[in-house]
């Protein structure tokens, strides 16, 4: 598990307006900055900048379509975040089981 990649996902989704964009794109399947700006109270320029940040974090896949870039959501980075939770959770379950054994071992002495 690459902690830096998870970090980039969290940073990218740390901004409410970026999360709104991800939801809007996920709902449509894919979208361009112009389409998104027309239905959100933000400028096309602001949307384009946020889309670039999300694409850098790997959350969006960009495809050129004529003069515009179309963006679609890539679910894998969110899967990474969930993987992190499962992996770290399992590590703590093991550690706490061992901690319990070492404490019981002491108590018996």
């Amino acid at each position: 598990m690459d902690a830096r990649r998870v970090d980039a996902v969290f940073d990218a989704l740390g901004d409410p307006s970026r999360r709104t964009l991800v939801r809007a794109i996920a709902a449509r399947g894919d979208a361009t900055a112009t389409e998104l700006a027309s239905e959100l109270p933000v400028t096309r320029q602001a949307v384009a900048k946020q889309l670039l940040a999300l694409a850098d974090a790997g959350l969006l896949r960009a495809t050129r379509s004529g003069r515009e870039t179309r963006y679609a959501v890539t679910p894998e980075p969110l899967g990474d975040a969930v993987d992190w939770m499962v992996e770290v959770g399992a590590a703590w379950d093991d550690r706490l089981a061992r901690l319990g054994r070492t404490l019981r071992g002491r108590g018996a002495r």
Partner: protein
Amino acid sequence: MEVEREVVFPAAPDEVWEALTEAERLEEWFANDVELDARPGGEGVFRWDDGEERHAVVRELEEERRIVFDWDDDGQTVIELAEVEEGTLVHVVETAPGFGTALELSAFAWTPVA
């Protein structure tokens, strides 16, 4: 995003505290090789037999109650103890690197993407 666990051990808080803060005790359950200066600002090095090595700084320490490790990858582990009738309640919270969006993101992550 964070992972949280809560366990009650049939041992007194001071016994559990030793297991959390003394290097040779940590080697019994946390890592294979441990160096730890258990005081605020103290450094810790944790090594595992598979070659993994993690460095931490003790961010907070409250004797027999609470210890906070800041990891070098920006993650954080908070361990809190509370005396209960059956022994000691141990509460662990490990926070992912880049925390700050945890609550919203964990809700978001489970929202079905249409």
